[in-house]
């Protein structure tokens, strides 16, 4: 059984424990009751120029790419001022353990 968390992530039972995994390669990104972003690799690009010359953002504005540490797929992105906390999303996956 798996529970969809986003287009790139889902929750599955791995070795009897609930884990958030990459949909593409099944790499585990931590337990389901913890934020998954710290387990991803982080690519912090200056927003300025990130998508071409038209990206004329300020110097402290970042494009954060959270990537799967196994297959390299981008799992999520967010715009952030340097130093601002990660955005945290939580999906109720209690049905996973109920199963």
């Amino acid at each position, binding site marked *: 059984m798996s529970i969809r968390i986003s287009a790139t992530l889902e929750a599955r039972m791995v070795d009897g424990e609930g884990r958030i995994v990459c949909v593409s390669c099944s790499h585990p990104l931590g337990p389901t009751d913890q934020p998954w972003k710290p*387990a991803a690799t*982080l690519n912090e690009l200056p927003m300025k120029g990130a998508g071409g010359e038209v990206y*004329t953002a300020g110097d402290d504005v970042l494009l954060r790419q959270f990537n799967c*540490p196994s297959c390299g797929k*981008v799992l999520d992105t967010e715009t952030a001022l340097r130093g601002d906390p990660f*955005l945290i999303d939580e999906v*109720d996956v209690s049905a996973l353990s109920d199963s």
Partner: protein
Amino acid sequence: MDPITFSIIRHRLYRIVDEAVITLKNVSGSATTNEGHDLMVSLYRANGSLLMGGVGFLHHLTSAAEACKAIIRRFKGDIHEGDMFLLNDPYTAALHTSDIYLISPIHYDDQLVGWSACFVHVYDIGAMSPGGFSPQSQDIYTEGFSSPGIKIIDRGELRNDVLDTLLNMVRNPEMVSLDIRSLIACNNVARDRFRVLIRKYGEEIVDGACMTLIDQSEQLLRDRLRELPNGKWQSRQYMDVNAEVHRVGLTMTKEDDHLVFDFSDSSPESPYSINCAYWASWGGLFAPLFPLLCYDITWNEGVIRPIEMIAPEGTIVNCRRPAPVSVATVGAIQSVNNAACTTIGKMLAASEKYKGEATAVWHANHFAIFLFGQNQRGGQSIGILTETFAGAGGARSFADGVDVGGEVPNPISRMANVESMEAAFPLRYLFRRRMKDSGGAGEYRGGVGAELAFVPHDAPDGGLHYVVSGKGTQFPMSEGLNGGYPGAPNSYLWVHSNEETAGDAPLSFAQSLESMPGEKESVTWGVYPIMGRDGLYVQWNGGGGYGDPLERDPAAVVADFEEGVVSEWTLRNVYGVVIDGDAGELDGPGTEAARKAARGTRLQREAAE
């Protein structure tokens, strides 16, 4: 009630609103209204609750409900058949002073049976800056005429003392008068058609159908919410004004059939007029909720019941009088809308059933530029660049965003033809076209925004002035979804093409920013001239992308490149696509190798913790 009668009454309510909108557009003389569609018409029940939300700017649907309730409270015992009321105070219900609500009670057999409410952004409201957006205002007192409710038509008779008081306080009173009369005509049509409906079916049956319709909407939304996953989703919007950064932070919690939007993590109210009052935030969150969660549900009070909002007083999303709010509609309200669009998009993307409804953010950097000055006919013109309504679509889970495709909070928004603008103002467009690279990259690309430039032309005063409320140059605000890039931010450049900076080089026929001679100065907030050999260049945002750009079909990237909406740099460095240098054709093996290398580079990054 038999289902056929119910269905007929439901559709008659839709048609009443549609006919009222047509009336509004036909009477108004403003391009903002009849071309940009900066308008709204809706029907309300006798207690002021939303009965039939119409088209136009959706964040007005709930605010106008509050306006109806404010009128009911203020004029209790003094509401008569044929009355009409005006309300535009943002601390009572309106979004900002220039969006005037005209509210008409609907009576049948001497009983109050409902309300019709509509708005347009009036030609002027007497704020410091012409047109209503007033970036230099430091409080509501300098943002023009403001009423928490006043009777403008008394039992069918226009109160000229009230109308003349308003017109005495605004620029171009004849155009504002036409705006007011378009609102009156709109309400007259809505009221008359509603009464015809009751005459045909009877008050009891129509009222029963209305209550059923509201209950039905509530049940349908609650059922849909139960089908969606429980959880919490966060989003954040940054707004830059004069180098100061303001945040709108949102945590949306969905539990069973209940949604809570918590904006507690938002900045304190700003000295700048990007703030919004409580009811404006309330409307702002419904603007994406109606189309994204209720695309097949009638927009009425039933949709509102399962929703809760937390917006602490004293923040940018619930400012206190007399904080300035004239730029709210493209400021905090727009950011509330963007933030809600992101969290709703994330929730939909987490659902197997509804993942196809998820969208990245549309047109989040929504700009506003008002032109004003003497026109080529010797009169005075004031008006918004209607390109402000021509946003770019966010990418979906199955398709690219629509280029210059509009915006979520106004399903009928559009921009005027270049010729309309040139007829209204003494200016000439040099170009207006889609903006390369502005759509957020992704497996599905965000729709691209656009760029334009114009110069004064046949201007008796040598040119014009303009008011720019230009947040959105330092931060992209159209967030991507599931790994997509955000759309590019905005840019506003004053091109000083005088002899000193440009010599004899002509600006008159430049076809690109690069070929516009002269010094280019970024302008974002305030009032500026465009005189003599000046030019104004505007670039506006694209929609957010969806998914990993390295997953995009390489043939689609090459097609974008050939069409001029993606640059060679972005094709190569963001999408990892390789093309044959001479022929410009896709190099399949080269692309595969480049993408493998790009993924390898990602793997070498440090863990995020």
